[in-house]
């Protein structure tokens, strides 16, 4: 994009970060008392809320029940005031449906669905402010919410986005960097085993560079895991103090 330097000669990005640096992450579990599990995450200026209901009986038609595992149902919704230009419909449009399906695929890989046959787990994600990396923020918030609900998972699911500019791989893209039109990679990782739950890439990228971008995204996801781990431990510590252990 003419006029906007995504990576300066000294190696600084538009918002002053280095190439592999993440934005500031703050998170909290147990935001809503009525839901089974809930969490809130802020990644820079991107804010996302996730709420989990379940496992409970299948709603709607019983025919959808799976005899050997639980059904994971995800909905992605972004508030009308979340983007710079006002969005007309919060959910139901093509992009939201696609995001919902991607989240579903991600969490079916991580949740131990065999433990809850014939039941349904609902994951609802709400984006309050979108400044790039919305998929990653949603996955991270949903991981914390599923943990808050006490649903057993194989491992944390940590996600991050990555891009490629001037021969350098950038981690955790903001909206300005995403809008510039370069290649973008979204990665959801299970950190302990290093398995990839979801990998998606837009735009053209030479295959020689793919490994570098993938490695940058994986490293960023592992960094996110360190932070989320701290949040979970802090939450458990607070809960056990309140119980008087």
């Amino acid at each position, binding site marked *: 994009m003419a006029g906007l330097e995504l990576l300066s000669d000294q190696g600084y990005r538009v918002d002053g970060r280095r190439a592999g640096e993440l934005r500031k992450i703050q998170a909290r579990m147990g935001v*809503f008392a009525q*839901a089974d599990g809930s969490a809130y995450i802020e990644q820079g200026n991107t804010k996302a809320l996730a709420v989990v209901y379940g496992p409970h009986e299948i709603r709607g038609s019983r025919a959808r029940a799976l005899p050997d595992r639980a059904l994971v149902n995800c909905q992605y919704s972004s508030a009308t005031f979340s983007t710079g230009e006002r969005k007309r419909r919060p959910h139901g449009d093509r992009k939201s449906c696609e995001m919902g399906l991607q989240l579903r695929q991600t969490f079916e890989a991580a949740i131990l669905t065999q433990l809850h046959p014939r039941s349904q787990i609902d994951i*609802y994600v709400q984006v*309050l402010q979108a400044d790039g990396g919305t998929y990653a923020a949603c996955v991270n918030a949903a991981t914390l919410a599923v943990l808050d609900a006490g649903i057993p998972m194989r491992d944390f699911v940590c996600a991050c986005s990555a891009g490629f500019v001037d021969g350098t791989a950038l981690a955790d893209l903001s909206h300005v960097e995403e809008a510039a039109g370069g290649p973008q990679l979204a990665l959801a990782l299970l950190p302990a085993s290093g398995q990839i739950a979801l990998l998606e890439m837009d735009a053209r990228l030479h295959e020689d560079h793919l490994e570098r971008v993938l490695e940058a995204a994986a490293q960023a996801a592992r960094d996110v895991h360190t932070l989320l781990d701290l949040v979970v431990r802090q939450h458990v510590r607070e809960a056990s103090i309140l119980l008087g252990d």
Partner: protein
Amino acid sequence: MASVALSEAEKVYIMHGVQEDLRVDGRGCEDYRCVEVETDVVSNTSGSARVKLGHTDILVGVKAEMGTPKLEKPNEGYLEFFVDCSANATPDFEGRGGDDLGTEIANTLYRIFSNKSSVDLKTLCISPREHCWVLYVDVLLLECDGNLFDAISIAVKAALFNTRIPRVRVLEDEEGSKDIELSDDPYDCIRLSVENVPCIVTLCKIGYRHVVDATLQEEACSLASLLVSVTSKGAVTCLRKVGKGSLDPESIFEMMETSKRVGKVLHASLQNILHKEESLGPKRQKVGFLG
């Protein structure tokens, strides 16, 4: 509406308690639950507010955009309301499940704000018949524990108080073509006066008495409710009965008197909190959902 299953015994217990002016959580019939209000929660809006009334959680964002004035009111801007009942509140709101409730609440908001004295729409006019500000007020319902209308009206008032609309000037060329110029200073903006913006007070009839700020369980026991929109001076601007039961005319007058009393106190404390928050200035620590 998100509903809760109550047994007959629980309903009788609640009704007997209300008769004695003692509700399940210890409040009196005219007491509100603890209300938390915070403004400026979402940064890419012109104004925003979050209200937590017990377990009811509402987030309102106001975006100001330029548009053309309506034909019958060429010197005024206007407000557009949209209510999104998020699936966070209950799985029943997934997909299109929350649309009915959302439309009902939005229509109520339209009716309240259609009153000329609520908001001075002439301040939103840029040039008559050509340009005006349109304020899109978007309400997001995150958690539902009864008394939605009250919480939403408080949040809308707080968000409108927090709204900052950039100041623009219309420059006219020699040929007569108009150009709109934005002021250079990003902090130069116009604020709306929310002195006359009303708040809704919902009164639910339980047995022979009525209660203010009903929880979900109390709403399940009540057959009929009255929504009264009250301004800070105690004037009633809008009245609506909801629910499947019926009300007799005397109780409607009693409920209206209660709502005027309660409404004045509510407005006074809301103004207090909003001014206190404003006086802390830009150094105020924003809590949002992290607190």
